[in-house]
């Protein structure tokens, strides 16, 4: 194969392993074909995508294994344990931190055949899906029956439910409907020893530490999520779209703080800085714009929108109508500029962090300033995309056309992470760790936190079979 790898090459699998796996799932679902190895070599870690255009891939899997049932996964995991073959679970391959890159000659466990809608309980407002169900397909199934999960990440069309669980994901409508950890009531997980863990769907329980939290953000290192039961919502009866122009980021953030304190719960709240507003809303230009979508039962929605309007107005917000919201709704999945820039040598990526309200504006200012100071920078911009009563998620996009791409990429990430940590922020709000962010993990969790995570990993997966080199063990190669 003429593609080059810069982290690890495919390994040689024990013949006994290959024979056993072929027996478990059938010959056609075990592949070592060149096209398959290349297709499962990389997720959407953008520096890797940048390099991929020249045939440089981070790693190649030793094989791609595509099971169709949980029983098959259990057998495969046991078999991998016996032969000490590492496994990288692969959902939609949309993760942006390299969490699905098959390092160290791993085989890829492809979960995309497990993509079925299983059931919907309208009385309890829950629905169950297999983990390989793509977000958009999950929504189409629910919408057809009059419901929505309310989980609408930008990766809706290319990420899976299992991926959402494993990365502790969040969607654009999260301020009302919550993040994935608020939505998942139950799940089924294949543990590293091949045993099955069933966490039954109940609204809450007090039976010791929450086991499901081990896998919400486990990134496939502690178990393989095979199905999940999530909360659902009837499709909204009323939707009200509003937007306001504010004199500064500080004022806009403070307005949203007051709105949430007043118990309004808009589904969407986003504050765009001047650069992003200029890009999204040419009619408004480079000003700070906040958009709000209130939705749900008509009476509550009307009150919600009224509270937002009043507090925005009281704080100098100038209404800019529904149009910016409509523009955002149209453009929100459009990631088209990145691949264009990359063809011209551009490095593009996004970094999402979280902070309390008291630090929210300062994190933004410091991150942007530090990232703009890196040589090769073209643009740094930001928006706040998820809100809590206590604080925010800040989402920064950066682009550069540097002479030394890796240097620029590394320095920009270092600058962003340093500014976040100095302002008491968390290094990740919802993209997770993958392999790229491992280098900052100890600064986030402290030595004790990392040690504890490693202890958990060692207890569950002493041979390090699952998703080697991600989240916990190893680090950058």
């Amino acid at each position, binding site marked *: 194969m003429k593609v080059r790898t810069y982290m690890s090459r495919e390994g040689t699998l024990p013949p006994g392993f290959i024979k056993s796996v072929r027996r478990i799932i059938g010959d056609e679902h075990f592949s070592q074909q060149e*096209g398959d190895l290349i297709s499962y070599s990389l997720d959407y870690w953008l520096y890797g*995508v940048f390099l991929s255009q020249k045939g440089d891939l981070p790693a190649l899997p030793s094989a791609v294994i*595509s099971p169709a049932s949980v029983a098959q996964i259990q057998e495969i995991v046991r078999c991998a344990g016996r032969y000490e073959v590492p496994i990288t679970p692969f959902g939609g391959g949309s993760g942006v931190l390299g969490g699905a890159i098959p390092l160290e000659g791993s085989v890829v466990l*492809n979960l995309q055949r497990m993509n079925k809608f299983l059931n919907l309980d309208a009385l309890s407002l829950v629905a169950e899906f297999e983990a390989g169900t*793509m977000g958009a397909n999950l929504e189409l199934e629910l919408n*057809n029956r009059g419901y929505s999960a309310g989980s609408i990440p930008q990766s809706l*069309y290319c990420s899976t439910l299992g991926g959402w669980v494993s990365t502790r994901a969040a969607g654009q409508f999260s301020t009302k409907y919550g993040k994935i950890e608020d939505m998942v009531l139950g799940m089924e997980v294949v543990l590293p020893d091949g045993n099955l863990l069933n966490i039954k769907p109940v609204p809450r329980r007090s039976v010791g530490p929450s086991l499901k939290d081990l896998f919400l953000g486990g990134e496939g290192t502690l178990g393989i999520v095979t199905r999940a039961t999530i909360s659902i919502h009837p499709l909204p009866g009323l939707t009200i779209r509003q937007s306001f122009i504010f004199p500064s980021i500080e004022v806009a953030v403070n307005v949203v703080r007051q709105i949430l304190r007043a118990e309004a719960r808009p589904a969407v709240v986003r504050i765009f800085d001047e650069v992003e507003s200029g890009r999204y809303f040419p009619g408004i230009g480079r000003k700070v714009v906040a958009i709000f979508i209130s939705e749900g039962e008509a009476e509550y929605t009307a009150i919600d929108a009224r509270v937002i309007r009043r507090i925005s107005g009281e704080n100098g917000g100038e209404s800019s109508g529904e149009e910016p919201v409509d523009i955002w709704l149209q453009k929100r999945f459009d990631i088209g500029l990145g*691949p264009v820039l990359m063809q011209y040598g551009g490095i593009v990526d996004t970094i999402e962090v979280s902070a309390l309200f008291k630090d929210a504006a300062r994190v933004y200012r410091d991150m942007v300033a530090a990232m703009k100071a890196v040589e090769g920078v073209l643009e740094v911009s930001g928006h706040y995309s998820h809100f809590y009563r206590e604080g925010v998620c800040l989402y920064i996009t950066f682009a550069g056309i540097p002479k030394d791409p890796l240097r620029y990429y590394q320095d920009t990430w270092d600058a962003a992470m340093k500014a976040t940590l100095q302002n008491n922020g968390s290094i990740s709000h919802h993209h997770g760790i993958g392999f790229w962010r491992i280098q900052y993990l100890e600064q986030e969790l402290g030595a004790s936190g990392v040690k504890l995570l490693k202890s958990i990993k060692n207890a569950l997966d002493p041979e390090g079979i699952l998703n080697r080199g991600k989240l916990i063990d190893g680090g950058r190669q």
Partner: protein
Amino acid sequence: MAEDSKEAEKIARCAMCADMCKYGCPTYLATGRETLSPQKMARLIVYNEKGFLDDEKGFLDLMFQSAMCGACSRHCIYDDYDLRKFIHEARVKAFVKGVIPEDVRQRVDTFRKFGNPSGERDIIDRGTGDTGYFISCSSYKDEDLLKAAEKMLSKSGLAVRRFGGGDICCGAPLYYVGDMEGFRQAALRMKVEIETRRLRSIVVDCPTCVKMMTEIYREIGVELGVEVMHTTQLMGSLLKQRRLRSRKEKKTVTFHDPCILSYDLAMSDIPRQVITALGFSLREPVYSGEHTHCCGGAYGAKIGDRRLKDAVTSMRLNELRQTAADIYVTACPTCKSVLSEINMKYITELVAERIIAKR
């Protein structure tokens, strides 16, 4: 040259996109194989062009596994791009090099011998008028559909010339295997058949024929110089003008949108208007209209391997069955045949069964 580099940029862009269209791709969904997702197909095409691949046969086999249904193009974030064009180019190169899969070669041989994909057939040519009803290869073997079309046309009072069979074919099977010279000959033959009959417009049951005769013929410089319409357009307008009147029915109908009709011809509303005009109530599957899935029989998939076709068909049958409708209807003779397990009807049959009188 500038045009080539612009096109190369487009597919390179696709190869670095986040695969935001794969949720709609029927071959990807039915197999759960990332490699068949549009962005990965694009990456492999780029890699093949750049000489990064060793396994040419494996690559070409993949190129022949696309259904060519257009779901990726419909859901693409770029307005100026259709991945099928690049997959088709790869097929053309394979054809020129003579490295096409064996089952594909057999189809070409049949076509070369008989001038159509099915084998020996009689020529059909009857009726008069400057409107033609072209009996596509897929309609030719469907007696129920032809009987229904006959009834519908005669009740409409329109003067229609029926033609087809023999070696008259739009050439789609050759286009999809990459035989562009054969396709061009078929297109020119079609032009002669139309001109000889002095037709001003033609009606066709098969959405792929409509696509070929309009968009694709134009790309190779063949202009038929007639209006080409799909049968649902004709029936929709006849019902609207009350040239066709029908008995009303209260049953439920699920309409399966043929991929080419929905994605390329943007005709999702017209068949539904026809069905509801007959008094039926519609039941929509989860994947309908702009989210429809290929039946597995589209010309792209038909030449792929059997297992792939069966997986796509089985997925679509399950999706349709979930609606539990009284009647299943489509507007593509191939879809009808592929989905016969649920007693799929062509929409003309639905109309013809309920026509009560001439206008």
